[in-house]
């Protein structure tokens, strides 16, 4: 692949054409927080945590869906970006009911880790305290909408990797919800294959195995990334 030159955070880099800004940063130890991104899944730029500043562009661009251009000058750690990342994190916590102390994912949660990472000491926005359902109708798994941040990893892994299309999205704005089939209880879904990939990629305590308990729950998003990589190598 042909290579181009870019400058990221004052580092001059030679990168392959067609690479995303996020991939370049990760390959060069430049830390950018993400929630909706997962290696192996198609990026959708939903969480907005990975926004970067590109000189010559007035808008902030999501690094997971932005491909590097020749001679671009990119900034990933400005005060403005750090401010927005913390604000976005606070909005995640304010939108639904994330109570880490009693959450099944406590200690094994990407959202919790993100809170520490961006230095979130408090939430400055009023909590919405939405009345969200817990769907425990499935024989193996639980879907807790209280903990969902709409990263849509579950939707993408189910359609793109498993090919089952069990998960979809309903409504817009703060009423948006992940749904099984045409909004049926997960246990009544006719498309779910019980594979558990959605549970493994979920970054929070929204999807979990019924055998799991607080402190012992482990998720394996990397397993899905590895699976996709192996399939690509085979093909």
């Amino acid at each position: 692949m042909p290579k181009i030159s870019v400058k990221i955070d004052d580092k001059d880099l030679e990168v392959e054409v067609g690479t995303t800004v996020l991939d370049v940063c990760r390959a060069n130890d430049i830390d950018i927080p993400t929630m909706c991104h997962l290696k192996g899944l198609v990026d959708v730029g939903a969480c907005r945590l990975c926004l970067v500043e590109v000189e010559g562009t007035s808008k902030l661009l999501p690094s997971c869906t932005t491909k590097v251009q020749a001679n671009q000058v990119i900034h990933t750690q400005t005060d403005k970006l750090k401010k927005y990342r913390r604000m976005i994190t606070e909005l995640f916590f304010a939108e639904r009911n994330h109570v880490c102390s009693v959450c099944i994912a406590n200690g094994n949660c990407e959202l919790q880790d993100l809170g520490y990472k961006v230095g979130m000491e408090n939430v400055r926005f009023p909590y919405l305290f939405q009345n969200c359902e817990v769907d425990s109708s499935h024989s193996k798994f639980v879907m807790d909408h209280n903990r969902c941040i709409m990263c849509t990893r579950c939707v993408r892994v189910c359609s793109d990797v498993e090919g089952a299309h069990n998960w979809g999205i309903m409504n817009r704005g703060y009423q948006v919800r992940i749904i099984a089939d045409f909004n049926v209880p997960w246990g009544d879904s006719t498309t779910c294959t019980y594979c558990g990939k959605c549970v493994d990629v979920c970054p929070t305590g929204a999807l979990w195995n019924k055998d799991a308990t607080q402190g012992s729950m482990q998720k394996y998003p990397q397993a899905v990334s590895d699976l996709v990589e192996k399939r690509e190598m085979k093909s």
Partner: protein
Amino acid sequence: MDKHLPPNTIMISPVTRIEGHAKITIMLDDASQVKDAQFHVNEFRGFEKFCEGRYFTEMPAITPRICGICPVSHSVASAKACEMIMGITVPYTGNLLRRMIHLGQHISSHALSFFHLSSPDFILGWDSDPVKRNILGVAEKFPDLARRGIRLRKFGQELSERVTGKKIHIMGIVPGGMSFPLTAENRQALLDWVPEAIETTQMGIDLIKKYHQEHHQEVSTFANFPSMYLGTVGPQGEMELYDGKLRFIEADGTIAADQVDPKFYLDYIAERVIPWSYLKYPYYKPHGYERGFYRVGPLARLNVASKMKTPIAQKEFEQFKAIGQGQPVHGTFYFHYARLIELMQAVEECKTILEDSQVTQSKTQVTGRHNYWEGIGCSEAPRGTLFHHYKTDASGKLVNINLLIATGQNNPAMNRSVLEVAKQYIKGKDIKEGVLNRVEAAIRCYDPCLSCSTHAIGQMPLLIEVRDHQGGLLNAIQRG
């Protein structure tokens, strides 16, 4: 100053050196004599309501947040309720570790109650300077005793930390057993600590017994009134702090009900809502509301038990029983002595558990699924018998939760104790701070756990007003 306070009323708010927030109101009659007293718990938690809709296996992680002092008891009762729903039995090692952590919580809680919260009254004096009547004041005068008390509490917490990695609000007590095993290294570290823990507990026992001797009249009459008692016992009637069957005794010591499976608790206990407190009034159902009030906790457990499980505790237990001369010991002040005897059994039993060859086995948990729709779990919390009762829908989501907390069961008795002490010490409108401390101390005997808040230092502001029947202010005492 509360302008809405009824006339002839004394209010103590907040009650200090207890866990949680409460206040006391004492009503005087026209002759300025104590007419009635009410112990108000003025905080609302709402766990029974907001846990509705959660999946049942989450409860052992949610309910410990009720309290920062006795979270393990909630975890244990909750996990047992879940195991009844699943229909599973905990493996031997899992049960051993749970028992040990639960005993560890008793050790830390009882050490906190005695050395941090109550001992300042005995050691420094009821009427000593309130600014120094706390653990720091004790540390100033008796540094070795204070240090040992603090270390004993630490030992209790260490029993949790060495298994689960956390001292408070541990993760690991789960439906089916324990998530984490105990390593051989941690087992040895805990065993090495046991002799010091026994020695410190014995110091506490000697201290309270000396106080009993020197203040016999005060101790024997302090809020001394007959009541029923409830506690957990083993198959031979031995005192149990973790798992067993319920025993109710009458005020004269006769057994009212024995070897009752906790899952039938509703056949024996009913609750009534009262207008002045968020705590309900539980009572022994067969006797009805008027006659059925009972006490739980250390005094109750020793009163109902036939014997202790360990040798040093048994020796003290025999002396405790001698106080009652064949009857239950009703004096509220003896809660402290009973608490220390329990503490001794807890430390000794931990030693036995740690010496068990299977305590470091790796098989600590079994798994199960939602098989039944209802589960009841019970444990002996430091403050008394605790019940968790869950009902679920077909998918395992909780539709009804009943938590019967130890302090709630002592509510009628605490009210009665305040009244008894107020009658004994408050005569007319001239009230000294030390007298009010005695009224608070009646509550402190029960070591009530009103929430997860802890106020170990006892420096909170306190305002007491005495008003005549016209509402006029007769006297006001303020501290803090």
